[in-house]
């Protein structure tokens, strides 16, 4: 005889009295919907106790850096078209994520950016010419990572996640309360190092915030080819890591969610995973043709969710911004772009002999030989130029 579940329940009244233990996974799960504090038209949504709104002066600064960040980004794209940059991966449309994330951490915290975080780095206060050094075609990352507590922009996908875990553990080991903020994109969550990084951070309770900007495309491949998960934030639960998803074009929500994630990590509770739903308005880089894989209608729909306009509308309504303030910030952004243009139009000097300087702390005998060879080649070329 087959026993139906109903029959079992009827036959065993005790079963009904069994108390289900609390599900340890439930507290790790993100909200089913992305956290959102501003509607797309900039009107405020009901406040949330778990994600308090940042103070007005912080939001004003968030807006200012987003405006500067966008102007930086459009200027970098223009410089690429003029041949001043070898390549530029734009993050236009992702200003809330780029700026909100770095505003959530301290100067002494460490940031682990990818190649798409140029805007985040200038928002962190790094000289834009230094940020663009590598993309300009030079051989090094431009800035001193130890001075600005920012790793070089990482091209190999997801590898920085493990570095963030190791750095955070090392800092805690040495008694410092540093938090590591690791940026990653939606495509890179398919890489093994994302999983190893989040797993190591969880096992060692390292203070890391993993911040996924889900901009919907990995070059041309849509999110549906990266994961079958309900959303990328659900990847935390398998590692015992609490997570949240946020509207990545809502600057107030991004800053609020990341502020909480950073506080969680700094309090010694281990890593936190945040997924921001956003959109890459530009192609992958200037070398990409996005019309081959997405409709202009889709791009247009995201234009209506512009994070800069959304924050401006809100702050104007709150009286934090007025015409004069917006004009002043716009002026700052233009001056910033003009300065960047001027400095990027200067031809940088590169020294081929410097290629040997930092392969090792001290060059090997073989590198010394090769440097001499290059030096001789350069001298010969110089002499020939002189003859001509």
């Amino acid at each position, binding site marked *: 005889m087959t026993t139906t579940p109903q029959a079992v329940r009827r036959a065993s009244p005790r079963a009904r009295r069994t108390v289900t233990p609390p599900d340890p996974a439930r507290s790790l799960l993100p909200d089913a919907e992305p956290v959102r504090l501003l509607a797309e038209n900039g009107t405020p949504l009901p406040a949330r106790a778990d994600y308090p709104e940042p103070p007005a002066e912080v939001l004003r600064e968030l807006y200012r850096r987003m405006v500067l960040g966008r102007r930086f980004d459009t200027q970098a794209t223009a410089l690429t078209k003029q041949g001043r940059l070898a390549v530029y991966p734009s993050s236009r449309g992702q200003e809330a994520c780029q700026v909100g994330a770095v505003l959530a951490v301290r100067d002494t915290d460490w940031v682990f950016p990818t190649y798409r975080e140029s805007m985040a780095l200038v928002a962190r206060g790094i000289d834009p010419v230094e940020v663009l050094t590598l993309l300009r075609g030079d051989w090094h990352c431009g800035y001193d990572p130890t*001075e600005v507590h920012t790793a070089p922009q990482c091209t190999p996908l997801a590898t920085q996640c493990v570095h963030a875990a190791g750095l955070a553990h090392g800092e805690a080991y040495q008694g410092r309360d540093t938090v590591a903020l690791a940026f990653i994109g939606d495509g890179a969550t398919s890489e093994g190092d994302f999983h190893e990084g989040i797993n190591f951070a969880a096992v060692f309770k390292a203070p890391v915030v993993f911040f996924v900007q889900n901009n919907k495309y990995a070059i041309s491949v849509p999110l549906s080819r990266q994961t079958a998960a309900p959303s990328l934030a659900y990847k935390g639960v398998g590692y015992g890591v609490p997570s949240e998803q946020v509207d990545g074009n809502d600057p107030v929500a991004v800053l609020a969610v990341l502020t909480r994630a950073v506080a969680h990590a700094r309090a010694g509770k281990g890593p936190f995973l945040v997924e921001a739903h956003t959109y890459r308005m530009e192609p992958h880089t200037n070398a990409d043709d996005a019309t081959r894989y997405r409709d202009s209608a889709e791009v247009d729909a995201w234009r209506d969710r512009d994070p800069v306009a959304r924050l401006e509308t809100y702050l104007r309504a709150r009286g934090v911004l007025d015409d004069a303030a917006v004009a002043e910030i716009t002026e700052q952004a233009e001056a910033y772009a003009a300065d960047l243009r001027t400095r990027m139009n200067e031809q940088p000097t590169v020294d081929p002999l410097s290629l040997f300087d*930092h392969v090792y702390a001290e060059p*090997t*005998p073989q590198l010394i030989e090769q440097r001499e060879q290059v030096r001789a080649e350069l001298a010969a070329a110089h002499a020939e130029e002189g003859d001509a």
Partner: protein
Amino acid sequence: MATTMAKALNTALADALAADDRVVVFGEDVGALGGVFRITDGLQARFGENRCFDTPLAEAGIVGFAVGMAMSGLRPVVEMQFDAFAYPAFEQIASHVAKLRNRTRGTLSVPIVIRVPYAGGIGGVEHHCDSSEAYYAHTPGLKVVTPATVDDAYSLLREAIEDPDPVVFMEPKKLYFASAEASLPTRNEPFGRAVVRRPGRDATLVAYGPAVPVALEAAEAAREEGWDLEVVDVRTIVPFDDETITASVRRTGRCVVIQEAPGFAGVGAEIAARVQERCFHALHAPVLRVAGLDIPYPAPMLEHTHLPGVDRVLDAVARLQWDDQPDARWAAA
């Protein structure tokens, strides 16, 4: 006092942990177990779980974690359990460990040591006996070191941990438990110096790691054939000591390079090319190589067919143009 390479490595780790608070040791099974080869035996008990600890089973994670810890100012020493198990970490090693100093103009360095038990001769099953040194030696930014003697195991590991650059430290598994007289602690020649293990007049055998004992044994056997062979132990593949090896070959006029790894595109090929470039006018014969076969590392029952042994070395020495005749092996068909 007689000791083993395994014990010498263990002592080197213990002495490094005692000497410098920044040194941390981690990997798979290195804690309570002391490593599958017992190289980290007793370190966790003596130095605590913060200084010597087990990690999740993920080699890219182990090496990437070490990169981050090094960025925070520590000096991680990590263990890859076996040569072939280190391959998942290759991206971290090639793209970050090797390049971080260069990418940051020297402001960030990665003074980590990646210990890799390598090579065969122990009857290991597949994926446990690879000679992977060429992958690392071909990657600028890494130092690649391999001891062949007990006291060098101690000395080179201490130096690797103190070195400002990342070091891939290749430990020949088959030599772990061979015993020799050694008084530890000891410090030998620094990185970048090869050592003449046995002086000789007639030809130079250049070897490293597991091939050094083979070369010494071959040199001993060659006496019966009337050849007086010099044996040079490379010790540090990167940085490479052209000077000592060039001087030796210029003296003897003949050279055989011995390695356990497959010969094609291997470290031995690089050594042979460098010797030929620098010693052409002193050479009485082509530089020959004796290497593992160009096959995946074979099963235990067949590994002795693969491994370059004394006979193969002596065969090569016999072909060093002693009678100025064309080498039959390369004679035109």
